[in-house]
């Protein structure tokens, strides 16, 4: 027998819930204090919230007085106002149209996330889908009443702004990132100036500029729709940030990958599309999704130029004199909506990272 075959016993492991608790929660004095403190905080905060939100709350009250009597949350208010919150000023009897449009948009986004649609059918789905969305939102054909886009609002508007914002800013940001690393000085300078300029300005000021300043520079009688201007401002803004994140990914790719692609005779475009970007983008999925989530929430800033997105229509719902003082309920309601979308993005990105991780596995 050689000594090598006489292996040591495995390290003693303690299992079971008691061992787990002792090891994880009470392993040191500091840990014990933190555990006690955390439990105390939870006990302080949670029961009153549950009491307010669930036990004493009212889901069915018909008037605000009745609702207030319980002393808890007034979810009945949401029941009264959810159509205003979700669809803004869109004509009441036509609100099935933005509803279908929003569902369609979400469905298209979900489909885009599934690898089984990653082929030629995806652009067809989008072109077709967007035409349907446009017809539903604007109307004016097929006997649908024409609805001006100043009347659009709520969730569909937020989804439209975020979808186009991200979908257009992403490729634009990639182009900017490649431009910033270009060897051609003119392109490089232009991209650097663009990125630095946009990054140095708050989105709010860009939205203001787009609505106040832009018309000054445009020829007389020529105007761009307010919603379109806001959309462009969001795209331009997000693209600058995306460009910098993508550039970070590009810099992480070793020189050998460029040389390997060059030695095969791939053109610049092929090299970037087939070899460099797939690897670079995979590296930057976490910060990219961070930006996408931020862009989604930042669409709420369009309120300052008078566009009725989800946030603004929620605020409008609070102005009804018959139902005063239920702002907490409304903000919780729209927060949940925002959260659902943002958390889905986050979850999907984690999923994507795992699926794409095979390449670097050793």
């Amino acid at each position, binding site marked *: 027998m050689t000594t090598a075959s006489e292996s040591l016993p495995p390290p003693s492991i303690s299992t079971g819930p008691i061992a787990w608790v002792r090891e994880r929660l009470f392993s040191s004095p500091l840990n014990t204090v933190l555990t006690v403190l955390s439990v105390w905080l939870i006990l302080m905060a949670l029961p009153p919230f549950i009491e307010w939100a669930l036990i004493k709350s009212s889901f069915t009250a018909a008037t605000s007085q009745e609702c207030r009597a319980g002393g808890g949350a007034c979810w009945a208010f949401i029941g009264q106002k959810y159509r205003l919150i979700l669809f803004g000023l869109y004509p009441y009897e036509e609100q099935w149209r933005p509803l279908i449009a929003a569902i369609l948009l979400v469905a298209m986004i979900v489909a885009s996330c599934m690898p089984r649609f990653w082929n030629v059918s995806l652009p067809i789905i989008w072109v077709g889908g967007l035409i349907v969305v446009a017809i539903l939102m604007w109307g004016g054909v097929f006997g649908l009443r024409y609805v001006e886009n100043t009347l659009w609002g709520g969730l569909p508007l937020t989804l439209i702004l975020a979808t186009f914002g991200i979908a257009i800013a992403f490729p634009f940001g990639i182009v900017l990132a490649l431009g910033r690393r270009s060897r051609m000085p003119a392109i490089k300078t232009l991209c650097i100036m663009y990125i630095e300029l946009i990054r140095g300005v708050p989105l709010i000021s860009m939205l203001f500029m787009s609505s106040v300043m832009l018309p000054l520079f445009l020829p007389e009688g020529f105007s761009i729709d307010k919603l379109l201007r806001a959309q462009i401002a969001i795209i331009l803004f997000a693209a600058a940030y995306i460009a910098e994140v993508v550039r970070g990914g590009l810099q992480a790719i070793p020189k050998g990958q460029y040389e390997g692609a060059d030695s095969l005779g791939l053109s610049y475009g092929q090299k970037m599309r087939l070899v460099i970007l797939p690897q670079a983008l*995979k590296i930057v999925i976490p910060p990219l999704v961070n930006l996408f989530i931020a862009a989604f929430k930042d669409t709420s800033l369009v309120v300052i130029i008078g566009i009725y997105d989800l946030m603004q229509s929620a605020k409008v719902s609070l102005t009804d004199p018959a139902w005063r003082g239920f702002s907490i309920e409304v903000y919780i309601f729209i927060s949940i909506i925002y959260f659902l979308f943002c958390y889905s993005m986050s979850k999907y990105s984690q999923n994507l990272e795992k699926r794409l991780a095979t390449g670097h596995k050793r």
Partner: protein
Amino acid sequence: MAVPIIELQKVNKWYGEFHVLRNINLNVARGERIVVCGPSGSGKSTMIRCINRLEEHQQGHIIVDGTELTNDIKNIDAIRREVGMVFQHFNLFPHLTVLENLTLGPIWVLKKPKAEAEATAMKYLERVRIPEQAKKYPGQLSGGQQQRVAIARSLCMNPKIMLFDEPTSALDPEMVKEVLDVMVGLAEEGGMTMICVTHEMGFARKVANRVIFMDRGEIIEQNTPEEFFSNPQNERTQLFLSQILH
């Protein structure tokens, strides 16, 4: 002598102040197998990297199979299609499977149909003796296997010239032989012009038509392997050989 497939005429290159290639003149005949050796920093890698324009020369002429390397992107692409390169660190694409690595060039550069590219890829994978790894990712292979995939990837482009830039230097010792065996097989088959930067003197003796010794950016000496190893002329060559052949 027939028209050489590679001509380097008075090639000079600088990295800033550092003169890395000094007046390099080299003619390589079609089908010739050349081993380039020399101390580190002598410019041997830089020289072969100039041949497919991974590095740019600043003076002189480089003519590959009748096409001169200039800034013209068409010439560069034409030459890269004819010249395969194997790197010290393999430079496989980690996000693609072995098979996808092999078919990328043929499909996108040579515009071959996918099925045909895959058939060719499998043929070369068999030749480097790892057809069973086709569906794996490079990160799942050993260094020696990765380098063999890299050789197969270059061969799939059906090049006239193969450049090897220290192909065994990054490998664990026990994997050097499997890569050299593949290279010897390729050399013995004949027809392929090969330039190999390596310190594997056994390989040089076995397959090279000519051994070139470089030092400080210059070609100091070149000769047949027999003469080169048994009767080195230059002092620096003698010193170098005494250091690597213990």
